């Protein structure tokens, strides 16, 4: 059984059909890169998997449990799947440490001391143990994104969804974030990441999904997809980004 099963998923915004029947099965420990033009539905797909958008047709299941749009099922889903955003979305009124502690204490009812222990451990994991008491606006973009990763990891998810998590960063800060992601991948975390970092996708990912106009246009191991694109759309897309 696959860890994440996406079957015939359709999503419309009004008349605009953004996902037109997506099928992807993700095995445990896989790292999937999702590439494609802006507007092709990459973010929407990730948001559907995390329940931030309701799907109109099809089904999504995570670790065998069907995604249902009521609060109880959503909460159960979100305990299993974490999400990292392009814009970090740290809580600006809380320190880095408190950012990582909050959801543990509020959602999982973890006692404070234990949550703090976990927060220290997770911040250490992303190389920021010395920033426990710093507020988000005292951190660089790269550091903020690493705190966001630590915050998601503290909930001990079985998979992470990353939506262009380096796109808002200055070029010199991209690598520190990618290094963290690479390490997670090496530790066996299941990852689905929308990215424009083709080199990273080639090095780290087990499969690459090329989305085009709301469909999975091509899917396969990176060597194949990058070296041997079959469709004109992918050839053009890779030509443009290279």
């Amino acid at each position, binding site marked *: 059984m696959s860890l994440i099963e996406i079957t015939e998923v359709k999503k419309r915004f009004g008349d605009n059909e953004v996902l037109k029947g997506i099928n992807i099965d993700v095995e445990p420990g896989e790292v999937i890169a999702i590439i494609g033009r802006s507007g092709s539905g990459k973010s929407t797909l990730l948001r559907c998997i*995390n*329940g*931030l958008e309701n799907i109109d047709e099809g089904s999504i299941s995570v670790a065998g449990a069907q995604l249902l749009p009521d*609060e109880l099922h*959503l*909460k159960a889903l*979100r*305990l299993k799947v*974490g*999400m990292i*955003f392009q*814009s*970090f*979305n*740290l*809580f*600006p*009124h*809380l320190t880095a440490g408190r950012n990582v502690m*909050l*959801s543990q204490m*509020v*959602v*999982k009812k973890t006692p404070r001391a234990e949550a703090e222990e976990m927060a220290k451990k997770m911040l250490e994991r992303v190389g920021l143990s010395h920033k426990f008491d710093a*507020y988000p*606006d*005292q951190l660089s973009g790269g550091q903020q994104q690493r705190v*966001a990763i630590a*915050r*998601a990891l503290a*909930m001990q998810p079985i998979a992470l969804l990353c939506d262009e998590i380096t796109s808002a960063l200055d070029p010199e800060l991209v690598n520190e974030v990618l290094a963290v992601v690479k390490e997670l991948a090496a530790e066996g975390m299941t990852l689905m990441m929308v990215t424009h970092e083709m080199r990273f996708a080639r090095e780290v990912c087990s499969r690459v999904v090329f989305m085009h106009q709301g469909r999975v246009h091509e899917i396969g191991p990176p060597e194949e997809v990058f070296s041997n694109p079959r469709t004109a759309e992918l050839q053009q897309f890779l030509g443009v980004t290279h």
Partner: protein
Amino acid sequence: MNDFTTWDILRNLLLAARWTVLLSVVSFIGGGLVGALLLFLRIGKSRLGQIFVRFYVEIFQGTPLLMQLFLAFFGLGLFGIDVPAWLAAAVALILWSAAFLTEIWRGCVEAVARGQWEASSSLGMGYLQQMRYVILPQALRVAVPPTVGFSVQVVKGTALTSIIGFVELSKAGTMVTNATFEPFTVYGFVALIYFCLCWPLSKSSQILERKLNVAHRNH
């Protein structure tokens, strides 16, 4: 001439100003409490609650405060309830303040970035948890300057209650004028006292706004 000294005039006005202050405080705090309640209905999930509050706000923002005072004073009288002026004044001002404060605060809640909702959702928080730990703490900081600023409107609003016979600063001004025939002196003092009440409020609202703009942080 008359035997009122300037000090007599001022003393009478200051005594009456106590009632202006008391009515302002009661209206502001009462309006804040009712306003908070309305806010939760307005941003809550119940459709009916939202509609009710929108309706409420439209009515109180769309009619003059003076009419609201008249309705509270004479309207309740129609039902055989004998409403003292102070009670009608307080009730009308509380309901009126609540409408404005709810709108101010709703704006502050909506000013919190969408990403904050999404991040806290993706971490598994429910609606009430998001509100309590993520959204309201941020909205509260934005809300302080306009809320303090609105208190000035409340102070000035109390002047209208003189018309239904509540003896506060303005009413006292009229009464003292009738006794002294020195309207310019008397109303000059009245205006000065209002200014002394309002200016520190609007000034601190400005300072708070600047401070919160400079330091986004919560330390």
